[in-house]
């Protein structure tokens, strides 16, 4: 089958594009849901030596199906070792051993700050979201961060009601000045394209657009006046091997759990 004839969904190209960013041998602290799908796809395709760490304690997890929760038994049984949750956060994350933090988000702003706490005022919330989980320290202490989420005006907002986890704060050198050790989010992968921070201002800029998507579509799905890179690239379409591996993984997961996806807890 030639690449041009491949059919794929927006979620599939998002997942494959996110997985491609994960290099072989990387030590990756994995959030549940989309990040876990992308990270495991990387492990099953181009990055067999990637080390997946989950906040529940498994280090070097090699799950056979996607975990539904962040503490599924399969993660423990397939890991190189399982440590306590305090040890994960103290020795492995705070200890500076994580190359990539792979996170999802409910909302992001133009400087890649993340909200997973609340919509509306904190004391009188319109929507109570699950909360921080491990994200604030993953976002600040991993050497770099990838964020994966679907793009819409509700998710990509000019001003977050609550900053749960720091991206580049107010932009420029604000993050470094605040004393945050990691470099911060280097890519936000969505179902429409890939946004990366401007080297100076740190404002998220559309640098890659998925095939078949228009710039107008991406702008319409963004709650601020999105900057478009003058060198805008078209995202490479998923290759047949990666697509087959992703679909196989999701079919195995559905057979095992009766559903795909996942959440913390």
């Amino acid at each position, binding site marked *: 089958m030639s690449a041009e004839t491949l059919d794929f969904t927006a979620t599939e190209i998002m997942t494959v594009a996110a997985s491609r960013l994960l290099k072989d041998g990387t030590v990756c602290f994995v959030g549940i849901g989309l990040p876990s799908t992308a990270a495991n796809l990387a492990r099953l395709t181009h990055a067999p030596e990637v080390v997946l760490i989950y906040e529940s304690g498994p280090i070097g997890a090699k799950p056979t199906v996607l975990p539904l929760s962040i503490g599924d038994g399969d993660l423990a049984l397939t890991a190189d070792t399982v440590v306590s949750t305090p040890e994960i956060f103290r020795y492995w994350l705070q200890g500076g051993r994580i190359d990539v933090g792979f996170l999802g988000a409910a909302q992001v702003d133009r400087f890649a700050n993340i909200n997973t706490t609340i919509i509306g005022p904190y004391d009188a919330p319109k929507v109570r979201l699950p909360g921080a989980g491990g994200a*604030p320290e993953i976002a600040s202490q991993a050497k770099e961060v990838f964020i994966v989420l679907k793009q819409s005006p509700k998710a990509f907002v000019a001003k977050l009601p609550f900053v749960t986890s720091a991206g580049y704060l107010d932009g420029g050198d604000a993050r470094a000045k605040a004393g945050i050790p990691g470099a911060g989010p280097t890519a936000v992968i969505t179902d429409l394209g890939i946004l990366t921070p401007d080297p100076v201002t740190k404002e998220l800029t559309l640098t890659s657009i998925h095939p078949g998507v228009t710039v107008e579509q991406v702008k319409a799905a963004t709650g601020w006046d999105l900057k478009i890179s003058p060198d805008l690239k078209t995202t490479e379409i998923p290759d047949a091997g990666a697509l087959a591996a992703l679909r196989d993984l999701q079919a195995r997961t559905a057979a095992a759990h009766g559903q795909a996806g996942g959440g913390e807890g």
Partner: protein
Amino acid sequence: MAKITPLREAVASLVHDGDTVALEGFTHLIPHAAGHEIIRQGRRGLTLVRMTPDLIYDQMIGMGCATKLIFSWGGNPGVGSLHRFRDAVEQGWPHRLETEEHSHAGMANAYVAGASNLPFALLRGYTGSDLPKVNPNIRFVECPFTAEKLAAIPSVRPDVTVIHAQKADRRGNVLLWGILGVQKEAVLAAKRSIVTVEEIVDDLEAPPNACVLPSWALSAVCPVPGGAYPSYAQGYSERDNRFYKAWDPIARSRDDFRAWMQRHVLDTDDFAGFRRVLAESMKEAV
């Protein structure tokens, strides 16, 4: 020495109205049976502590057991929101629920500090987050050696910690394995502790360095096979993902929730009774 006792007696003697109570478990080994028993016995005014409040805290909050929740992530793993928790926070039903919100790293460190008999936990965390703006218990101190700014939060020191484990021996020494979460720290941080176990055996057959909680560090050990249901106990049971999904529509409506709790928890004598009635109602649903 831990007393090996029925769960009903352990809850009656060790969990009091107004206590700070931690029922810990990180997806694995969640002490559902003990949570139900606390609901059955009508405890009120509890400060509930847990890194990852899920269905059992949704039930306890919805039944009015808690006035405060200290937590870092609250949801139905793999499914979505906790509707009773959200209703309490968003609408104040059945009454207002005060929340004290942290990150996982903060909570994990706070348990370690509690177990270490320290007044506060120290970590590199929360920088750039709005959490310190809404939680006055997140503060910053200067390292006396390097002047680095570090986060400080009060230790978690529960009156009672409740966990579920795989097995205990006849003296009440407890062995747990698999995903351990913060259970060891939560038990050692608490004044009193209850451990429900899958079974009581003659010999734990624990290798050196296994996670064994010695009997003399625990208050009560209660045999409750399957007591983590619908979560799992590695080596004994699988997580029942169907129940996590089934919980979502039950918890959406106050009336459905109340009726479900009445039939499955308040009108049953114990966890075995709950499991029997649940099997019947799940059959009816099919």
